[in-house]
C-alpha cells in the first residue's frame, strides 16, 4: 500500500489539511481542489456507488464535486483530484450564532444517519467540516465517509461531544456569547473544562448527564479492552445518533438580553431617522456597481436586507442575539444571499491553529466591493478609543466603496457613551473625520440623515 509522500503536503496542501492522511485540500489557480489518496479509494467508491453521495447532494447536505480527468494538470502520480463546488466565503464556527451551531450539529447527525443506512459512517465530526452556503449549512469534507465495520461504536462520538455538544451546552446553560470559546479550543472544548463551566443543575438533565458528565468521568480512566467494542450493533448506533439528534433539537440559546437587542425599536432616534437613512443608503447604492457587500455592525440586518438576492452579503455584529435572530429570520424567509456572523471588530477572529496558519483571521477573509459602516464609528472611536486614522486604514483594504456614518458629539448616543467618562476626544469632529478619511478615500456623496446631526458618506477608495 503506497502512502502519501511528505512532499505532497509540504508543497501543496492547505495549512489546515494535514490531519487525515486519506487526502488533502489544495489551491491552484485560485480554485480549491481535493486530492484523494489511493488508500481512501474503497471508501470513496462506496460513497459514490451506494447512492449516498447523490442522495446527500440532492438534499443540499453535501458539497457536490466533479472529478478532474486531465491528469497532466497536477503532479500526482496516482489517486484522484476533485474540484468541489466553490464556496465564496469561509466562515469558522466561532463566528456562528447558536442556531447556526445547532443546524450544523443536526446536519452532521443527519449525514451520519444517512451514511449508516448505506453502511458507511462519519469518521470525524468537527464543525470545520461545515460551511454556510446559500443560507444553509453544507458538509464540505468528502473524505469524512468511511465503510461501516459491524459491531464498532462511533469513532467520532467524543469529537462530536467536544466540538458540537460542548459549545451548544455552554450557550444553552451559560451565555449565548460563549460560542467564541471555540477560538481557544478549536479541536473541541475538553470535557473536564466543560463540566467545570456548566452549572451543577445541568446534571439533572438526562442527556447532559449521559453525554457530558458521565463522559467526563470516563475520560482517561477506562482503558479500552480490545475486541470489546465489537458488540455495538447497528441498531445501537442508530439509537445513539437518534438520541443525540433529539437532544440537540431540544436545546435553545440562554435568554439573556444583550446590549443591542431592540436597538432600532427602543432607539430615541425614531422612525424618521431610520427611514431617511434607508432612503440615503438606497440612493447611494443605486449609483455604484458592486456584487458583494460587508455590513459591519449589522445589528438586526435592516440594511443588509436592502440588497437583492443577486448581491452576496456578509453581515457581522458583535452581538450574538442580533446575529442569531437575523440568521433565523433569513432561514424563515428563505434568503440565501446573506451570511450573518458574530464578530467583535475590536477583537476580530484571529489566525489560529498550527503555526497560526490553519484558520485565517477574519480580517484576511473579509473582502467585498462595498463596505457598510453605519452607526459604527462612534463605538470604535469613543467606546473603544480607536483613533480615526486606524479606522480608515483598517477599512480601506476591505472594499472599494464605503458607506459610512459619522455620529457627532452632540448626538444622544454619543452623549450616552461619554456620560460616565472624561471626554478625551478633542479630535472627534466632522472636519477631522473628513480630513483623515481623505487620505484613504475620495468622498463621492455626503448627506445629513433626516433631522439629526448625523452625516452619511459614500466614499471610494483611492487607487
Amino acid at each position, binding site marked *: 500500500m503506497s502512502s502519501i509522500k511528505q512532499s505532497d503536503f509540504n508543497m501543496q496542501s492547505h495549512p489546515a489539511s494535514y490531519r487525515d492522511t486519506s487526502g488533502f485540500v489544495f489551491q491552484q489557480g485560485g480554485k480549491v481542489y481535493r486530492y484523494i489518496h489511493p488508500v481512501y479509494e474503497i471508501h470513496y467508491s462506496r460513497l459514490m456507488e451506494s447512492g449516498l453521495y447523490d442522495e446527500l447532494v440532492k438534499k443540499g447536505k453535501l458539497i457536490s464535486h466533479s472529478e478532474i480527468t486531465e491528469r497532466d494538470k497536477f503532479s500526482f502520480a496516482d489517486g484522484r483530484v476533485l474540484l468541489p463546488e466553490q464556496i465564496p466565503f469561509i466562515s469558522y464556527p466561532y463566528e456562528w450564532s447558536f442556531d447556526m451551531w445547532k443546524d450544523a450539529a443536526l446536519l452532521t447527525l443527519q449525514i451520519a444517519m444517512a451514511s449508516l443506512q448505506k453502511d458507511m459512517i462519519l469518521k470525524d465530526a468537527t464543525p470545520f467540516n461545515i460551511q454556510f452556503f446559500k443560507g444553509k449549512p453544507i458538509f464540505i469534507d468528502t473524505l469524512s465517509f468511511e465503510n461501516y465495520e459491524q459491531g464498532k461504536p462511533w*469513532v467520532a462520538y467524543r469529537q462530536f461531544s467536544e466540538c458540537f455538544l460542548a459549545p451548544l451546552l455552554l450557550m444553552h446553560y451559560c451565555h449565548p456569547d460563549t460560542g467564541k470559546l471555540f477560538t481557544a479550543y478549536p479541536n473541541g472544548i475538553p470535557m473536564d473544562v466543560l463540566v467545570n463551566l456548566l452549572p451543577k443543575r445541568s446534571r439533572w438533565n438526562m442527556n447532559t448527564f449521559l453525554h457530558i458528565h458521565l463522559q467526563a468521568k470516563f475520560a482517561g480512566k477506562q482503558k479500552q479492552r480490545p475486541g*470489546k467494542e465489537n458488540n455495538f450493533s447497528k441498531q445501537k448506533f442508530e439509537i445513539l445518533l437518534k438520541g443525540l439528534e433529539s437532544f440537540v433539537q431540544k436545546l435553545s440559546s440562554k435568554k439573556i438580553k444583550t446590549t443591542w437587542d431592540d436597538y432600532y425599536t427602543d432607539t430615541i432616534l425614531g422612525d424618521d431617522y431610520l427611514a431617511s437613512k434607508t432612503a440615503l443608503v438606497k440612493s447611494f447604492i443605486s449609483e455604484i456597481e458592486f456584487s458583494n457587500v460587508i455590513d459591519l455592525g449589522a445589528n438586526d440586518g435592516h440594511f443588509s436586507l436592502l440588497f437583492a438576492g443577486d448581491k452576496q452579503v456578509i453581515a457581522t455584529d458583535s452581538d450574538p442575539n442580533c446575529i442569531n435572530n437575523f440568521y433565523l429570520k433569513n432561514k424563515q424567509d428563505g434568503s440565501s444571499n446573506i451570511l450573518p456572523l458574530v464578530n467583535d471588530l475590536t477583537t476580530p477572529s484571529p489566525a489560529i491553529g498550527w503555526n497560526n496558519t490553519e484558520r485565517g483571521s477574519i480580517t484576511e477573509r473579509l473582502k467585498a466591493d462595498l463596505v457598510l459602516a453605519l452607526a459604527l464609528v462612534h463605538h470604535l472611536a469613543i467606546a473603544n478609543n480607536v483613533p480615526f486614522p486606524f479606522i480608515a486604514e483598517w477599512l480601506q483594504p476591505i472594499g472599494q466603496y464605503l458607506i459610512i456614518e459619522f455620529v457627532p458629539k452632540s448626538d444622544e448616543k454619543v452623549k450616552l457613551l461619554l456620560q460616565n467618562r472624561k471626554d478625551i476626544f478633542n479630535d472627534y469632529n466632522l472636519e477631522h473625520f473628513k480630513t483623515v478619511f481623505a487620505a484613504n478615500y475620495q468622498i463621492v456623496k455626503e448627506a445629513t440623515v433626516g433631522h439629526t446631526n448625523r452625516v452619511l458618506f459614500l466614499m471610494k477608495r483611492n487607487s
Partner: protein
Amino acid sequence: MYFFLLYIDPGSGSYLLQMIIAAVLGASFFFKNFWFSFKAFFASKKPKKEDENDTVD
C-alpha cells in the same frame, strides 16, 4: 483495518460509554413508545365513540 482508520482519538472509555448510552436511550425509547401506544390506545377510543354517536344522531 486501515492505517488511517483512527486518525482521530476516539477517547478512552468512549466506546464503553456509547454502549451504556445506547442501552439507556434504547430503554427510554422503548418505554416512550410503550407510553405513546398506551395513550394512543385510549385516545383512539374516544373519537370512535363520538363518530358512532354522530351516525346515530
